[in-house]
């Protein structure tokens, strides 16, 4: 709980601030003011989840894992070499976009791997931005 002896850490502060807004302030408001307050509370929730996600994730490791997954998907030596030697600073995701646009995944067989990867990326992002959406809510 204590953060360098100064009280709650950043994530805990965000959670506390959000609860205070919802439990003590929102009930006193209506109309546009209430809408604005709920928007602020939502922003705090998103920021909190993203902060927690960063605390729990090794970002360098996640980036490497994503690059490896994309390279595996682009598994012909020529494309992989081009991606590796690219001097324009294009990221693996940019290469993936370029290959999608060029028709690399037009046939059903190659789409399986692509869609599995895209779903995995999408799920990870949704878990941070709106986990309720994955449960069927909005």
């Amino acid at each position, binding site marked *: 709980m204590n953060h360098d002896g100064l009280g709650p850490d950043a994530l805990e502060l965000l959670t506390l601030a959000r609860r205070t807004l919802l439990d003590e302030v929102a009930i006193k408001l209506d109309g*546009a003011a209430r*809408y*604005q307050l709920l*928007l*602020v509370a*939502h*922003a705090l929730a*998103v920021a909190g989840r993203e902060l927690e996600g960063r605390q729990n994730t090794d970002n360098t490791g996640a980036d490497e894992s994503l690059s490896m997954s994309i390279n595996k998907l682009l598994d012909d030596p020529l494309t992989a070499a081009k991606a590796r030697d690219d001097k324009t600073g294009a*990221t693996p*995701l*940019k290469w*993936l*976009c370029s290959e*999608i*646009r060029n*028709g690399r*995944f*037009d046939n*059903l067989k190659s*789409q399986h791997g*692509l*869609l599995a990867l*895209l*779903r995995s*990326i*999408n799920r990870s*992002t*949704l878990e941070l*931005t*709106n986990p309720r*959406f*994955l449960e*069927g*809510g*909005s």
Partner: protein
Amino acid sequence: MTPDDAVRIADWLKFRSAASSVTITDSRSLSGGAIQDNRAMQVHFDGGELDGDHALVLRMSNPGMLSASHSKAEEFALLKAAFAAGVSVPQPLYLCEDTTVLGQPFFVMQKIDGIAIGAKIVRDASIGGGHASLLRRLALELVRIHHIGTDQTDSDDGLDLKFLGPRPLEPATELIEQYQSWLDQLAEPHPVLEWGLRWLRLNVPTAPATVLCHRDFRTGNYLVDAKTVTGILDWEFAGWGDPAEDVGWLCCRSWRFGADQKEAGGIGSRKDFVTAYLEAGGYPMDDARINYYEVMANIRWAIIALKQTGRVTSGAESSLELALIGRRVPEMEFEILRLTGG
């Protein structure tokens, strides 16, 4: 609106309505203005064609206006065409292209009563005479929209829609090109959107006709009172397209406001909406085309959201609402993957 603005608007309204005097007795900003600025005004006219008291709305663009948005003169022409075709819309009154009045073009229309808040509409099953009745009314409104401009002599009675350009032979392809160019304007790669656009290219359907599509026909963009639909709003994106484009947009999950099982705007089933649309004299519909345009709807909304949130990251705006819109893109991407996943 500054006091000086109010004086200039009153003077302009006096001139346009041929009134002897015009007084703006009340003025307030209406919500939902991420792209457009709508201002409600209570106005008293002495004499002239609007003699008496009127509730009006002044509409002009916000700085965040999208490149796909029509100019105010074009939107005014569309509103006039819709009004003449019997679509429930606010009566358009006057267009002002003189930028010395407010610094940019605007138009004035009669104010319509009703609510447009999507979450309220989907939660209140009695609104609009009940959701079943509301659904049928919306279908009828859409049929009327899709028949606007079917008579090429429309321009003869002042409904000049030439600015929309020729009707495309393959409307889906034209839209794909447009959205691809929007995507290319974004700095970051978005593989799901790229995949969605590729899927659209591989599955282009044949349109039964090219009609006037509203392009923002959804819950949250119509006004409804206790009995029925009172107004279809926001005509800034209208253009020629496949009639299924509007149905796909209405069915996009984002516009169900949590009532996900009710595909047609959170108020009813897609099947019931299509049945009502066809009974009202609409164009042929099929599930495959509606699915196709639902994918397109999610791509379009995702790119618009990214462009809007980009205005915050670039420092051009500081709106929390716009800042948060970008965080919703993964939801649209989820839908794109679900709908294209086979």
